[in-house]
């Protein structure tokens, strides 16, 4: 079985963000980069499926500049077999339709039976790319999956709905799954696997070869939201802070009466 996992490299969300010179995205300097959290679950699920099937080949795909190779190496160390790096320094400015179009164009003739993506990215968060890839390839897709099982040619998945409810669905490959947090427990790459990953194939394809659609939307600008909260911000020594908090809770709430 051929499996494709699509991942994205994103900044750590705890970072101090700055706005870039064009004013349309965050500045990429002084950030710590990591694999999009949702995609870690996608990689893990692909590797678990391979372990179950014994015979499978996992391609991990990532779009971006050279720096995304670091994140791809983590996916290879987790157990993906080969990497497809779509080299695109302008990836951050592409809209979901264009990102999906590049993935679909890459995947079109490769007969992947299962494609895993994260349900959304942590930075842009459109939750569109996976579904658009499926639409472009004519595949059935299920999003927001928190449980995945493959048995005798059938996939049973549980979708997470609001209020703790799950929807149980079944379908047959080829298909696409978008992964929600909590789907599994992503493994940490072991040192021997990190070493092995360095020898795995990592093919680079220029974006121009794959990108054939125009954007249907553009970013006018990006900005910090206005601080609406009139809350009090307290800083300093923890003992003083605790005293201040107790005083405030006494005054403003009835819970310390």
């Amino acid at each position, binding site marked *: 079985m051929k499996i494709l996992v699509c991942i994205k490299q994103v900044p750590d969300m705890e970072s101090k963000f700055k706005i870039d010179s064009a004013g349309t995205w965050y500045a990429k300097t002084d950030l710590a980069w990591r694999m999009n959290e949702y995609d870690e679950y996608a990689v893990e699920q692909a590797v678990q499926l391979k372990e179950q099937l014994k015979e499978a080949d996992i391609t991990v795909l990532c779009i971006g500049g050279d720096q995304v190779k670091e994140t791809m190496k983590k996916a290879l160390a987790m157990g993906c077999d080969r990497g497809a790096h779509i080299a695109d320094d302008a990836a951050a400015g592409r809209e979901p339709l264009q990102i999906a179009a590049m993935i679909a164009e890459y995947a079109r003739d490769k007969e992947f039976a299962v494609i895993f993506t994260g349900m959304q990215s942590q930075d842009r*968060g459109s939750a569109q790319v996976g579904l658009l890839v499926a639409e472009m390839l004519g595949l059935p897709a299920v999003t927001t999956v928190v449980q995945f099982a493959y048995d005798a040619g059938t996939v049973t998945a549980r*979708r997470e709905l609001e209020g703790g409810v799950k929807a149980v669905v079944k379908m047959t490959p080829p298909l696409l799954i978008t992964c929600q947090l909590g789907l599994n427990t992503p493994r940490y790459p072991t040192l021997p696997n990190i070493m092995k990953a360095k020898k795995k194939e990592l093919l680079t394809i220029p974006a121009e070869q794959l990108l054939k659609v125009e954007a249907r939307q553009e970013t006018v600008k990006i900005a910090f939201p206005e601080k609406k909260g009139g809350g009090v911000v307290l800083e300093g020594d923890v003992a003083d802070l605790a005293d201040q908090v107790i005083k405030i809770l006494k005054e403003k709430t*009835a819970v310390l009466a």
Partner: protein
Amino acid sequence: MKILLIAESREGKILGGSYELLAFAEKIQAESVMFLVGGESALPSYPGKLYLAEAAAVGEYNPDVHRELILAVVAAEKPDMVAFCHSSYGWDLAPRVAYALQAAQVSEVVEVVDGTFMVPVCNAKLRRQVKPATALVVVTLQAGAFGSSEEPAGTPTVEKISATSAGRVEFVGYEQAAGGGVDLGKAQVIVSAGRGIGKPENVAMVAELAKALGGEYGASRPVVDAEWVEHNRQVGTTGQSVSPKLYVACGISGAIQHLAGMKKSEFILAVNTDRDAPIGEVADVLVVADLKQFVPVLTEKLKAR
């Protein structure tokens, strides 16, 4: 301006987000029509035209067929915009519909400014202004961003529609969360642990503070996903929605899904090392400190009172 609103129902009940769509249509002063896969016994309170497909016939989750039905309504009504809730139903269906219509899709809209849309970026730390380039636009709306989810008055004029195809995804059924345990909804004080607690051993620290305040402890999604705290203590969209007298958020950055479950609390105290964390937007008091140092000190002082 004409807008098609994609309402939602589950197990025969209209979901509240459906009325937020209506509030959105009013806000942008658009004429609206509504689409729903549901049942005649539970129609939305809506004073307009409703295209209704019977859930009994087409299934409540059947994206291929729901897409086909929506495309038929778009062909008949020729709207300028199609609006979904940014929910498990809406974000699953909107890209399929947008792709078929060759329309721009803008996800998780929180505000409309002069025909452009504001959407959150990086866990709402930044906000992006998006301008669509197509005449027809598909949007999903962030829960709670546009007015209330309360029922308006009115009875719709119903036009029934049906589908011919079967769909490629088989819906087996719903599974309810394992019940029992903790009803956070009844607690006067809730102290919740977020990713900032760092390791499972620190849950005890948060539970101790909850005890000192006479309340219960809860957790945000990452802590539950890591299995440090059981799911029946999760606060947020996919867990419990709470509104206690006091909510203490320890090491919780404030993802929108968490905020949606606790922002109606009477008083919110947040403890976070990141002064810019989105939780600060809803907090009455934000203590900028490492919770692992601050929480035990606060607990001791509360006990010593």
